[in-house]
């Protein structure tokens, strides 16, 4: 029962690479992802890192994991539990023990199951010898030893040798799933083009791992996962944070506005800054400011001077930006604030996901200060939403808050590539030289005011945070004017619902249960509702991307359903927002606050009880 048997074809499989943070699991996971994507699988990935950079080696706190779900069918989530776990040490096994499927395969690096390693992970006895893993198929691979062995003649340092053991693990998994090694070989050769010794070593270990799996009789079979039937077109794999960055550049090209990012590093949003910082060749300006406040203020300054100013952050940083966001609302300047949400309050759970900044996005500022709020819902549609956020902010001259989360930002999936031609036009609202410019004169239809860009002759004017007189924009403390301006600012946002598409429903228009979600929970909600529909259940899903304003058919849509449950990764912020807007409708809630996404299993079982 080994290499010559016919591989078993699987519809989908979930694999998790887990090890100490220094074990290179993110690299193995990313390589497996790329190779599977090139083979045409649909997929979804999710990395989970430790919050501390240098958590003690070998401890549970130091475990870094990368989960990937691949399939020949449509894949919407990184998967609830793993079919295959690679555990590079006891801590990695222990922390993932509960999320492996019964009968699943566990590949352990047996060399790191010494007494000391076991103690560090908090095991009294080795789980490999006490029958506690009987319900799994455990493969004990001497990964460290064979890695050292295969590189014993190389000139690499013992540290470099030890660091290549992730390639051994990757080799095993490549063999198990009949994946070609060339994409990874090419990648390594390119990455270490100047350090050929390292490149050679890594590739050798990759092959050693592959051959090890091929030779030993431990695997009852290997597997294949055929390519998925995706819509025709050109694809690539994309991560949420990357897609957000690209959407902004696309909007900048489309609108003819230079892109300016003012930002301060913060987990899990920094990757947007890193990504945009690469593209000076496209004229992108990134400014790593001295703090979060300077990040947003510099972006507002850049917008005032004619750029598309944006700022990126996560929860705590978003709190710091509140005052400046209010100024952008008062001065009615373009600005996109991206909040890649994480667990809160305070520093909270920096590396974990949550949807708990919704109320902050809607109301977290002094005064009546309405902003547009939009949420991304898949790693790849982050591209569309950062593009749309830019379009709205430039055409309405009002700030837009774009909510993503750690799960979307770090997650990845195949993306049918869009070109700039596919994207809608963006027409910034700008006054021209020679116009009789009144800073707060508005477009009758949209209520948007025009910008006059410094450098334009004859349009000199002053903006500021003090209340503006209608039309002239002069400072005004007049009470009636203030009320009027508050109403205009709010009305202007409401009018945006005129241009946003109507809210769609997946499932029947009169199903017994309507599931409501918003933002990053889309994958798990869709999968569970889809499963239940296939089981014949009367259930439907609607996922919101436009939060403020809501699509204009929202009330009519809600009225069609007798039972509604709002599912979100907070204690009910969107449910309360809906209650406030649609009094009389009963919204049940399903909430989770564990820093983790919903699993399809827990959703399905909850929906079933609601349907009974």
């Amino acid at each position: 029962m080994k290499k010559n048997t016919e591989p078993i074809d699987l519809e989908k499989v979930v694999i998790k690479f887990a090890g100490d943070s220094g074990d290179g699991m993110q690299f193995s996971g990313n390589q497996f992802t790329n190779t599977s994507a090139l083979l045409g699988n649909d997929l979804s990935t999710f990395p989970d890192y430790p919050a501390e950079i240098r958590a003690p080696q070998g401890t549970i706190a130091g475990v870094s994991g990368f989960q990937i779900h691949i399939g020949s069918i449509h894949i919407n989530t990184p998967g609830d539990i793993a079919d295959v776990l690679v555990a590079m040490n006891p801590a990695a096994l222990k922390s993932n023990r509960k999320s492996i499927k019964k009968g699943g395969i566990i590949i352990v690096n047996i060399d790191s199951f010494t007494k000391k390693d076991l103690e560090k992970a908090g095991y009294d006895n080795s789980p490999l010898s006490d029958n506690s893993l009987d319900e799994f198929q455990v493969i004990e691979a001497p990964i460290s030893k064979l890695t050292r062995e295969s590189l014993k003649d190389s000139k690499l340092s013992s540290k470099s040798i030890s660091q290549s053991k992730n390639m051994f693990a990757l080799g095993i998994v490549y063999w198990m799933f009949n994946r070609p090694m060339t994409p990874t070989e090419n990648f390594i050769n390119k990455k270490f083009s100047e350090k050929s010794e390292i490149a050679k070593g890594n590739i050798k270990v990759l092959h050693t791992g592959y051959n090890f799996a091929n030779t030993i009789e431990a695997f009852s079979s290997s597997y294949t996962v055929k390519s998925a039937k995706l819509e025709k077109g050109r694809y690539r794999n994309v991560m949420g944070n990357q897609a957000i960055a690209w959407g902004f550049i696309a909007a900048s090209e489309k609108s003819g506005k230079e892109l300016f990012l003012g930002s301060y590093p913060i987990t899990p949003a920094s990757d947007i800054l890193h990504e945009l910082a690469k593209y000076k060749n496209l004229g992108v300006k990134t400014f790593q400011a001295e703090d979060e406040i300077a990040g947003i203020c510099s972006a507002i300054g850049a917008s005032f001077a004619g750029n598309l100013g944006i700022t990126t952050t996560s929860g705590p940083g978003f709190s710091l930006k509140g005052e400046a966001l209010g100024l952008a609302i008062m001065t009615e300047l373009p600005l996109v604030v991206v909040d890649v949400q994480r667990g809160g309050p305070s520093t909270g759970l920096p590396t974990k996901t949550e949807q708990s900044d919704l109320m902050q996005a809607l109301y977290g500022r002094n005064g009546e200060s309405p902003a547009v709020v939009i949420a991304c819902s898949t790693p790849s549609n982050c591209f569309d939403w950062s593009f749309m956020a830019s379009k709205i902010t430039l055409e309405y001259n009002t700030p837009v808050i774009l909510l993503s989360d750690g799960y979307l930002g770090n997650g990845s999936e195949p993306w049918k590539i869009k070109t700039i031609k596919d994207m809608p036009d963006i027409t910034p609202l700008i006054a021209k030289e020679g116009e009789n410019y009144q800073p707060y004169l508005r477009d009758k239809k949209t209520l948007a005011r025009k910008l006059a860009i410094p450098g334009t002759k004859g349009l000199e004017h002053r903006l500021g945070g003090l209340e503006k007189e209608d039309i002239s924009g002069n400072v005004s403390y007049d009470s009636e004017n203030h009320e009027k301006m508050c109403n205009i600012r709010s009305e202007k946002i409401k009018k945006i619902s005129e241009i946003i598409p109507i809210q769609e429903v997946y499932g029947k228009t009169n199903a017994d249960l309507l599931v409501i979600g918003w933002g990053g929970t889309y994958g798990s909600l869709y999968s569970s509702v889809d499963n239940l529909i296939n089981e014949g259940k009367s259930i439907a899903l609607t996922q919101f991307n436009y939060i403020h304003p809501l699509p204009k058919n929202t009330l009519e849509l809600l009225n069609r359903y007798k039972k509604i449950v709002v599912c979100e990764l907070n204690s009910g912020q969107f449910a309360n927002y809906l209650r406030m807007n649609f009094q009389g409708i009963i919204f049940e809630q399903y909430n989770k606050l564990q820093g983790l996404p919903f699993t399809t299993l827990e959703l399905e079982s909850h929906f079933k009880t609601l349907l009974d």
Partner: protein
Amino acid sequence: MENLTKKDFTSDQEIRWCPGCGDYAILNSMQKALPNLGRKKEEFVFISGIGCSSRFPYYMNTYGFHSIHGRAPAFATGIKLANPNLSVWQITGDGDALAIGGNHFIHALRRNIDINILLFNNEIYGLTKGQFSPTSQKGIKTKSNPHGTTDTPFSPSDLAIGSQSSFFARVVDTNPRLMQSIFVEAEQHRGTSLIEILQNCVIFNDKTFDAITGKDFKKDAQLILEDGKPMIFGSEMNKGITLNGLKLEVVTIGENGVKEEDVLVHDAKEEDPTLHSMLARMQPPEFPAALGIIRSVKRKTFDSGVLSQIEHEKENSKFKTIDEIINSGDTWEV
């Protein structure tokens, strides 16, 4: 180039500073200085934070932005990076720049972004009605500290020099001529030009700078520095500054064998800031206060660094559009 005058820079807004406030003289000097810069009116942008001084942009008929407390350097940085052709002026006070905005202030100086900062130092909070500020003299009694402050004040010059400032000047609000000439020089300096203006708040801290600006003795209390010129001052122009060991000293030319050649010659372009710092720290009655351009050194600006990187990448990268980026790397056809 059209001929601009003071009037072109005067807005139609009613000025709301207290009568007798030093801010009027500063505004006037600015409106007179700008036409001398050979720039177009639409290229000037005035940015402020919050405070009495921060109303300044409303009174200038240029592009202007009255932003939020302490953050003006960040707005100015964004504006300058977005359009480096603009002449960007930040108007701030001792509370705005050195208390709530201290962080942005030092980072602007450190980066040497090409903007001009006017620091109206009146050593008090005016707009919020009279609390002590980070430059208030120790022990001063105010509403927020009726028993006298126990805070040690900042020295703006030391803070600036410690932040790698490339241009530091000091003026008094009673000398419009000096203000005008320094505004012009500040604009011509590439990098962050910081001008500390000792500004009298008639309402909450009147006469604080009298020891420097008092009509009867100001000639003895002010040393107006000029690059390349000996540091001579006094009503009879016979006093000078010399270096005695590691300390500055006031000497009288003609007394005790002191000759004019013994007096220090001002070198604003000296990279080493030690002497600039010592000069800026001088205070009456022992010393005259140093006014004029104390430090002006050449240093690459932040904005030119950013822009030259962009130019270089644009020329040398094979990718010119986002479409090309998206289609590069691992892609596949279905």
